[in-house]
């Protein structure tokens, strides 16, 4: 036993794996599993947003549209041609990735609040197409009767079984995102975010990486969309509106922009908290708004920012914390530069 930290880590991984695998078996009812499934999809969306916005600094409020493209691709292919989820998943991801790249084109030209508006405009336009092209999308009625998937003859019907599919996708999504962040692409993203002019001077092809970042965000959202369509078997345009982009933005900022762990904290935390607070009615939403403002004003790094700060001041190392090879100061305060 030469390195005790490996054992400790192993124990944590084992406990974590067990908890994740056992969750649907011990969950009190199916609804709870459904909430966690939706949270899993939000984690995927948030990971996509985090890569584009937290790492590459690309303001993107078109997330709902990417999500919708993935979901509608799956829904149409499945209801018209009976294409299974396993084929829809890559197709949806490619489609949403292409839409992401297209939306990125105006981004090369405009900046900051102009960019925010351009992405809102494009997302609204895609949503209007979904509502109005009734021959294709059935408009506001939505598309129903999407099949739940089967794998080797086992029907993945119901939330409990779907949970494992989403879990797998989220884990793969996380591992891929981690690889992206740690390697050349991620370093280029951070360089562009922190100072685009300097990054260009150092030979980073800023335009290429900005398009790539938005395309990656599209791929993540596309995957979430395909899963959403097959999980709920029914989709309608109102889910893919601007407000869902704001929701994902909120969870990412509350979790921690520029930190992949932040996507998990926000993606799980926000939907579950909302579920717990349900029933207080409008006061709940007032509290929600105040909570957002408090986070923005006092903890701009989100929950992950708080844990990092605690860690630095107390010297405690969280079991899941990585060795501080990446400068934490850079990740903690996500490009808080003046307007």
């Amino acid at each position, binding site marked *: 036993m030469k390195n005790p930290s490996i054992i400790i880590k192993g124990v944590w991984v084992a406990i974590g794996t067990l908890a994740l695998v056992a969750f649907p078996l011990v969950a009190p009812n199916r609804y709870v599993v459904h909430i966690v499934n939706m949270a899993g999809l939000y984690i995927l969306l948030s990971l996509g947003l985090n890569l584009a916005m937290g790492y590459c600094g690309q303001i993107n409020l078109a997330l709902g549209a990417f999500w919708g493209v993935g979901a509608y691709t799956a829904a149409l292919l499945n209801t018209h041609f009976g294409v299974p989820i396993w084929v829809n998943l890559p197709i949806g991801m490619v489609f949403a990735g292409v839409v992401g790249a297209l939306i990125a084109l105006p981004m090369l030209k405009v900046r900051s609040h102009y960019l925010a508006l351009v992405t809102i405009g494009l997302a609204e336009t895609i949503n209007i197409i979904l509502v109005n092209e009734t021959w294709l999308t059935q408009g506001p009625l939505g598309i129903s009767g999407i099949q739940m998937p089967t794998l080797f003859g086992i029907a993945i019907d119901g939330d409990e079984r779907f949970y494992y599919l989403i879990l797998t996708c989220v884990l793969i999504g996380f591992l891929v995102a981690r690889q992206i962040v740690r390697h050349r692409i991620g370093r280029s993203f951070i360089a562009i975010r922190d100072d685009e002019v300097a990054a260009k001077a150092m030979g980073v092809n800023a335009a290429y990486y900005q398009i790539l970042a938005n395309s990656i965000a599209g791929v993540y959202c596309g995957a979430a969309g395909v899963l959403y369509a097959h999980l709920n078997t029914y989709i309608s345009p109102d889910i893919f509106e601007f407000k869902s982009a704001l929701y994902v933005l909120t969870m990412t*900022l509350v979790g921690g922009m520029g930190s992949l762990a932040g996507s998990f904290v926000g993606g799980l935390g926000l939907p579950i908290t909302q579920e717990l607070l349900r029933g207080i009615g409008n006061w709940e939403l007032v509290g929600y*708004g105040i909570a957002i403002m408090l986070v923005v004003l006092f903890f701009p790094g989100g929950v992950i920012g708080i844990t990092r700060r605690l860690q630095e001041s107390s010297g405690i190392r969280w079991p899941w914390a990585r060795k501080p090879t990446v400068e934490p100061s850079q990740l903690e305060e*996500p490009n808080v530069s003046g307007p």
Partner: protein
Amino acid sequence: MNINTVSIFLQTIVGGIGIGSLYALVALGYSMQYRSMGLVNFAQGSIYMIGTYFGIIWYQGMVMGLQVPYPIAFLIGIVLNMGLGLILERIFRPLANLDLMLMLLGTIGLGYVLDNMAIITWGAEGFAVKSPLPNTPIIIGGVALLPQMLLLIGVSAILMVGLTVFLSKAKIGKAMRAAASDRETASAMGIPVNTTNAVSFAIGCGLAAAAGILAAPIVYVNPAMGGPVGLKGFAAFILGGAGSIPGAIVGGLVFGVLEAVSAGFVSSAYTKGIAFVVMVVVLMFRPGGIVGEVTVDKV
């Protein structure tokens, strides 16, 4: 082209100018706040909604059964909303120094608070407001115009001219422009920058209330009315050039006319889409907006 098509076209344009004045007033609110504090306030739609209620509750006799005449309700609404603006400015002040993403989220958070307070106070269901002017259209040269629409256009024009004169002639207006162009030098010259910021913010809120109360008899008053108008006002503010006063007016009118023309002659379903696509194209060629931005990003 026969007379009928021409008159329909003119009517569409006037309708567009009417809705455009509404957007322009809201966009002026964004502009006043942006140029003074550097704040992009996404709660402006909610402030517009609250301002509408502040005026209309008096007109509708919802306060202690008092039936206040429309012009007085209009003034009460503006004054109350300016008061609200002075309070909100204190809350927004720390937000103005943050990164755009955080600013966006913080102001949206405040928007949630305002929207839901409105639902708690006045209920989620809206109501139609009876027009203070007769509902019969006035016909000028074959063009039928609603009196309330003309009132909206006229009063908006007066407010816009008034604001421009105020900023260029009045002492505090000049101080506000100085503070907008260089905060530090202005405060070194003895201009109370925090006060001018608060006044700018309050004026922005007052304009939003004016827009809302003028449009109330045309639109349906409910707590969700702020969202779309806030978004389009923001679009107008960006389209004209962030922080520019003539830009906000031009942006609002262009956006309104664009919407009306695309609704009347191209496709009513794609109104919003066409307006947004044109806007994106304009921004591609003029990234600083039609008139041009006031403050320029530093490298």
